[in-house]
């Protein structure tokens, strides 16, 4: 009998529906319609950039690493694309290729530093981010290049209420879902993220999956940069930092139920997390909330949403102990014994005290 497990993706969907419901009511109070095609389009457009970054970030976090360099990769990608295109539609294919190659190289560097030099992902990507910041500072003084109209269309057009950028994002999410669920690299990535030592002992080469994850993450950040360039019409050295994409994408990934320690999570959860952010942002813009208060609301929403399901006893890793696991008996006895142990300690101490004080008295009584 197959039991329906309430896994985190379902909970994320639940939260999303709740957020949409509350948002729709709030929007209705100011006399606007939440479900108008224009508004839905706004929300989906708002999802696409963060969505692309977060898909990449999901891969890296599944491998128990982090990528803080995405903000700078986004800025660099927008600049490379815009300056290479330089207003000429004929340059588009070459510009896109070049941008993605550069981003892949950055991701490769990240991956090698994390796997070969064994620097913690947090520090490694922070350092690479600083290096990229230096490159941006030296190479570019301000917005540069120009994007031809043909490329700007990607960010501006849509099919019905669905923006093209959003469709691209969802298609890529499906590709990543396939990669994670149906390919060897994906399975190995889960294994390495869950426990690198166990993965190694089971004959998995631990380095390649993590390197692939880092490369893909940077490529996805590069795609986000391309999308931003197509929306802005120019490349900007600060566009990534302004968006705060590194931390927001990590928040979206965790919101989507992926464990920060790696080894467990899903792409669709991440998309759900991104959607929650987009809806909250949209509702706040419609209601014309003070821009500073928006950050406050964002902060509260992030913590509250994650709190909703992290309190529940969701299997943190695939079941290993207890029913359904390969081993039975594990933490439960220890957990049950904990109060007894504390009590025993206290009893022992009391006994010791009593023994000290009344050794002679006891002797007399016997």
């Amino acid at each position: 009998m197959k039991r329906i497990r309430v896994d985190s993706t379902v909970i994320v969907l639940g939260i999303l529906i709740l957020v949409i419901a509350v948002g729709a009511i709030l929007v209705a109070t100011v006399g606007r319609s939440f479900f108008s095609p224009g508004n839905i389009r706004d929300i989906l457009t708002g999802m696409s950039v963060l969505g692309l970054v977060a898909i990449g970030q999901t891969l890296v976090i599944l491998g128990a690493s982090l990528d803080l360099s995405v903000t700078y990769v986004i800025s660099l990608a927008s600049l490379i694309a815009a300056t290479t295109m330089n207003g000429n539609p004929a340059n588009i294919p070459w510009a896109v290729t070049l941008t993605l190659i550069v981003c892949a190289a950055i991701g490769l560097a990240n991956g090698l530093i994390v796997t070969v030099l064994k620097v913690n992902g947090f520090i490694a990507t922070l350092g690479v981010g600083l290096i990229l910041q230096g490159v941006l500072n030296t190479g570019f003084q301000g917005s540069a290049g120009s994007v031809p109209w043909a490329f700007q269309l990607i960010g501006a057009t849509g099919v019905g209420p669905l923006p093209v950028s959003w469709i691209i994002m969802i298609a890529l999410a499906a590709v990543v879902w396939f990669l994670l669920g149906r390919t060897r690299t994906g399975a190995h990535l889960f294994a390495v993220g869950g426990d690198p030592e166990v993965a190694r002992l089971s004959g998995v080469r631990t380095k390649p999956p993590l390197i692939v994850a880092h490369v893909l993450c940077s490529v996805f950040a590069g795609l986000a940069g391309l999308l931003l360039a197509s929306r802005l019409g120019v490349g900007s050295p600060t566009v990534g930092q302004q968006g705060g994409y590194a931390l927001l994408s990590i928040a979206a990934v965790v919101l989507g139920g992926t464990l920060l320690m790696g080894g467990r999570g899903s792409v669709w959860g991440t998309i759900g997390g991104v959607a929650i952010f987009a809806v909250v942002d949209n509702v706040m813009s419609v209601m014309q909330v003070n821009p500073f208060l928006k950050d406050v609301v964002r902060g509260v929403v992030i913590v509250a949403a994650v709190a909703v399901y992290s309190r529940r006893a969701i299997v943190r890793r695939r079941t290993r102990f207890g029913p359904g696991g390969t081993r039975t008996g594990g933490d439960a006895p220890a957990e049950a014994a904990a109060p007894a142990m504390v009590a025993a300690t206290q009893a022992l101490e009391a006994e010791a005290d009593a023994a000290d004080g009344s050794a002679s008295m006891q002797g007399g009584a016997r």
Partner: protein
Amino acid sequence: MKFLTALVSPRGAVFLLLVILLVAVMVLNPNFAEPGQLMRYIQRVAPVAIVAIGQYFVIIAGEFDLSQGSLITAQVIVAGNLVAQDDARTVPVLCLMVVLGLVVGLVNGLLTTLLKVPSFIVTLGMMLALLGLVLWWTGGAATGNPADSFRQIGRGGIRDIPVLDFLPWSVLVLAAWLALGIWVTKRPLGKLLIAIGDNARATRYSGARDWWVTTRAFMISSLSATVSAVLLVGYAGVHPSVGRGYEFVAITAVVLGGVVLGGGRGWIVAAVAGAFVLEALFLLLNIAGVPSSLRDAVQGVIIIAAVAYSGLVFRSRRRGGAPQTPPSPGKEPDAPDGAEESSATQALAGEGAAPNNRS
């Protein structure tokens, strides 16, 4: 010889790096060796080092505190707006700042431990919320120039001392805070934090109130950010960008000091040395005339290299069959401390008692 091996060891790597950087600075700028200049250098490091001390306690427990930078900004703006030009308000506002710091730490800690939200997310949310609230309150522009008596803490000092010439208050504050920090690491709290960072579950089963222990680490961290903010008000003035990015600088400093992200291992003095290394690095880049645009890049390379180096040394020592890892003061979380009645020792006793009970 022993000293040299200690320097090359992972725990000493950060000190070796510090010595190299300081010597390099002195070669390029002989003036730096003067005590007065050295004091100015320490004065500049003090805010970063104090934040790093706070971050250390959170990181050895296996958590992150990303809200430090925002808290500093918030505190600086609070000070700027509330103290104004009134000397009499200095002490009440200082008290208010301490309370605010403790409350922020308490909220961070309780959300992390009781609601079981990852600390990365809790403190990220706190970072956004705090900064947003403060900027909303001030309308986005930080104004106000606190009274001189308040700013003296960060910029003033004792003048006309024989050798040193000038001893800034912030150096004294740093020394006191470090001493306090070292004292805490020797207390049950410090040992329990390392135990929790190493194996939270085992520590919980052995009877420690892990939620309260971890929460106190967050409170120490927020309090450190508050102290740092008080120094920064005097040193850097009131501006919404003061404190920005301090959380990352602090984490980098702590990791440079050989503290393991994920918890369970690390030495507080090395974490402070990490802060000194970072500031020495900025100084060196400044003196060596590296164009300001490239400074970030050089910093990034050195951080990666330093962390990679200490990691490599650490692993090679392990592989080389060294007699275990060199025991550090913090590595024995449940060393029985006769004088102190820590929960860890209680647990040890409890383990022995359990079979007795059954038989």
